[in-house]
């Protein structure tokens, strides 16, 4: 499969600059990583509306809350591991509880961060954010969807979390595709098994579908960028037609996309399910692709899981 690759961070930065042009109420915060998160693009164009909070994420979340309480739409960015775990209580108490208009847009999520190692990788951010009441959580599949989600967040009332990667992601969606918060999309139709991914794993699901096609298995591929609220109707539809499902995420299988889907299905429409993701482990230093292989975040692993759930169907 030939992919064109693009940077989620770059599209995030571009969307922010466009928001800055069209809206006066947008404020952007960062914690000394603005060149990495690409909020620097916004800072350059709109220095008055940008505040660097230094290496002080807890304070940054409080500042975001204060700005939002004063009518601003606040985008707060840093690496995913610091944006969530390091200041989870601040996010809970000062943003989620008062239900404020803060958009936490984190980059460098997952293990594709690579060489920096486990201290800078994260497999818990989605779990932490989706358990907070009032929060909306999205994991865009590629750069195109990142741009659309950023724009959509600005219109959405309430706290949001968006997860981006460091490396360039394969483009799996098109600019013309519609995008709506809380809605996933079907990228490929199929009858035998549903492959449902988020983030970079959507492209792995598409690869897996091609591998399965060679074995005469027709796989439906779903891009589930809507983690919370979960697009339950789409999950239900997909498993009704295929009867089994594999989820794939660059996140701990505990409490990420797979858990959300599993919980919903067990209560509504139990079908055989397997979760592909980080198996409750920290990552390590290495190249992004090497790490993906080592930790089983591959199309081959998805194929194995698909064959297993089809047998159990």
């Amino acid at each position, binding site marked *: 499969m030939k992919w064109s690759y693009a940077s989620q961070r770059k599209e995030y930065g571009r969307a922010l600059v466009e928001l800055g042009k069209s809206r006066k109420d947008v404020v952007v915060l960062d914690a000394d990583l603005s060149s990495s998160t690409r909020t620097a693009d916004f800072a350059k164009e709109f220095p008055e509306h940008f505040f660097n909070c*230094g290496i002080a994420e807890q304070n940054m979340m409080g500042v975001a809350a204060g700005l939002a309480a004063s009518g601003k739409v606040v985008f707060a960015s840093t690496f995913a591991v610091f944006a969530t775990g390091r200041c989870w209580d601040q996010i809970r108490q*000062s943003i989620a509880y008062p239900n404020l208009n803060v958009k936490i847009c984190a980059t460098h999520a997952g293990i594709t961060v690579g060489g920096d190692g486990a201290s800078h990788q994260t497999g818990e951010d989605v779990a932490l954010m989706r358990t907070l009441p009032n929060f909306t959580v999205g994991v865009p599949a590629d750069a195109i969807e990142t741009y659309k989600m950023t724009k959509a967040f600005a219109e959405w009332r309430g706290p949001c979390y968006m997860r981006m990667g460091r490396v360039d992601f394969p483009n799996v969606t098109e600019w013309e595709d519609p995008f709506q918060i809380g809605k996933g999309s079907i990228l490929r139709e199929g009858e035998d098994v549903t492959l449902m991914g988020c983030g970079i794993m959507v492209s792995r699901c598409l690869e897996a579908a091609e591998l399965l096609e060679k074995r005469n298995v027709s796989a439906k591929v779903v891009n589930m960028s809507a983690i919370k609220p979960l697009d339950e109707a789409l999950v239900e539809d997909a498993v009704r037609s295929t009867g089994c499902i594999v989820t794939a995420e660059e996140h701990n299988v505990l409490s990420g996309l797979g858990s959300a889907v599993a919980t919903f299905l067990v209560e509504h429409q139990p079908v055989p399910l397997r979760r592909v993701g980080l198996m409750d482990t920290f990552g390590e230093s290495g190249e992004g692709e090497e790490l993906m292989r080592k930790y089983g975040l591959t199309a081959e692993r998805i194929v194995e899981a698909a064959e297993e759930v089809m047998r159990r169907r």
Partner: protein
Amino acid sequence: MRFLEESSLGILAFPGSLNGNVPKGLNWYPYYSPLLAFEVLRLTAYPDDVIAELERRANLIRRHIIRMTRAAGSGHPGGSLSSADILSALFFKVMRHRPTDPNWEDRDRFVLSKGHAAPAYYAALAESGYFPVEELLTLRKLGSRLQGHPSKGKLPGVEMSTGSLGQGLSVANGMALAAKLDRKSYRIYCLCGDGEMQSGQIWEAAMLGAHYELDNLTAFLDRNKLQIDGPTEKVMSLEPLADKWRAFGWNVIEIDGHNMREILDACDKAKEVRNKPTMILAHTVKGKGVSFMENALSFHGKAPNDEEMRKALRELGEKI
């Protein structure tokens, strides 16, 4: 309510309350200041009747605190009583706000960082006219708008959900930045406890406030010197607190947090400072106003029983 608008230079006289003990290190104090006459003028800027009325209202807040915590069977009377004078000054004199229009755009904002002083806060809000005073007795009860700690959106006048200590000053920073951004003249007031000075986030916030020169932010430090496990200096020493804030780039004013003239004067001074946020370090007494609650650790987070309530209300001047 007419007195709220009045302000004039009073007669030149030492307020009686200045004749007591002068805390060590308060070298700005009028007795020692080379600007003695100026200071005295300032401290008499408010007529006696204004001061008396604010003191009366602080006392009213204290009585509400006692009744509310008794009715709830729990809550934090100690740290509420210590901040009653500050809240009275802020809500009935210093702050521009419209209780009948809580979301008035140009209102001054108040963040209660020490969220456990909610009873004092709610009493000040109710007496201001944000909601009926009778509702105070629903504190902590199921279905009440008066949550154990302030919850934004539930109760008119509450600007931010607080209670997890160490977070309020960051929020106040954000509000102050927003005011600057919008070129609005409203001010942000924040009341911090001394125990929460042990939280690292406070110092992150201190840095940001100074860095962005938030001179529209006035914070109070209710320095009552006691926290749940004992004296702050035993649990985790904080001193020298004033020096710490100065070192972080703040304008620091030390006052007796139970002296109404000093509270008002400090707020006025804070308004005149440019390019720096102000920390008003208010020396207070935990449980102030009720003899058996003063400096009593047990009343940090314990409500009075019926007998204690009656005794406390008598001491606070209520005829029962």
